[in-house]
């Protein structure tokens, strides 16, 4: 880690690969779903990257790493509980139906210019999250790196952006 702090890329890559199984084992204590575990591992690696300057070379590395993994696992668990309590997965917005009238929400937006116009009405961080995840099809990790937003913030902002777009579309329909 000391070599990584001074900019040694090879040492950093080796370190991240070596600690990934350890992070996986740490987050497995909080979660059993394999896909979620991998997401937590990625979130932990991203956080480690952002706060690598806080590692004190004079202190042991593992407690520092474990604290980050533990915090990101707790955040993910809280997020999942919050989502399951207050939100319902809405698949309809992504689908089209044989009945033309059922597609009004999506078909009402005819051109890319109109979509762009609606996106401009969103707050910057929500727009950034939606563009990265839904339009550019980035993974959460890639979007987080590109935008500087945490994985949790990206999820929340995408959810809010979709909700707001839906409201804007309903407003246009009226």
């Amino acid at each position: 880690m000391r070599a990584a702090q001074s900019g040694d890329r090879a040492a950093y890559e080796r370190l991240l690969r070596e600690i990934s199984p350890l992070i996986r084992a740490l987050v497995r204590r909080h979660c059993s779903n394999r896909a979620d575990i991998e997401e937590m591992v990625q979130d932990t690696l991203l956080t480690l990257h952002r706060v690598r300057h806080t590692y004190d070379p004079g202190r042991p590395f593992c407690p520092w790493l474990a604290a980050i993994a533990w915090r990101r696992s707790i955040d993910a668990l809280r997020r999942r509980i919050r989502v399951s309590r207050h939100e319902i997965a809405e698949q309809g917005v992504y689908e089209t139906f044989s009945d033309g009238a059922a597609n009004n929400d999506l078909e009402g937006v005819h051109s890319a210019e109109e979509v762009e116009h609606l996106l401009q009405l969103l707050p910057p961080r929500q727009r950034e999250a939606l563009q990265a995840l839904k339009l550019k099809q980035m993974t959460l990790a890639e979007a987080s790196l590109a935008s500087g937003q945490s994985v949790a913030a990206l999820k929340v902002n995408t959810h809010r952006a979709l909700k707001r777009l839906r409201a804007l579309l309903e407003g246009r329909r009226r």
Partner: protein
Amino acid sequence: MQADKAMQTDKMIQSLAAQLQPVRPLHSPLLRALLWLAVVGSIAGLLIAHAVGLGIFLQRVAVARVAVETAATALTAITAVIAAFELSVPGRSPRWAVLPVLPFLTWLGASGLGCLANGLSLHGDAGFSGESPHCFAFITGVSVPLGLGLFWMLRRARPIAPLPVAALGTLGVAATAAFLLQFFHPFDVTVIDLALHLAAIALVVLVGTAWRRPLLAAA
């Protein structure tokens, strides 16, 4: 699906390594806390020496209970600021959060005794005469620049758990403001004073913790 996720992790590691830039490790949290306290202490000392002098203060701390209250207020500020800096860095013991509890309780206890000494009067020796709102404004007003300076230093660590950092940091800031108030507050607190001091501290802590993520640039 699982293989895709694992590949993403692998790709992400490559990407993180490719964009790695050298960083300078932060100085120790204790050192940074002491630096903030020293800067604030120096500025406040100069302002007090020029504006009000130490006469009133020295006269008041000659009373044992007031001396204990003043020392406990200062200790609350010092310990809360140190705890905030310690907890801003991953891997530090969560027990740092209890460091300011004893001085804070002592401060509350000594202030409460001051109220009892005033016979729970709403007016005190010097009379109410609008001093309490002045104290409220002093604590909240002084906390703003102190808090901005503290958060500016704390945000360098990009705390991964910003809530305790913000709560302890703002407690430290409010306690510092309350300590400085001792130099301008030449009489024992009344019940109203104490209630307004606590309300001002609670307001500072609430506002600081509510805005913790943007203020602390949480990771």
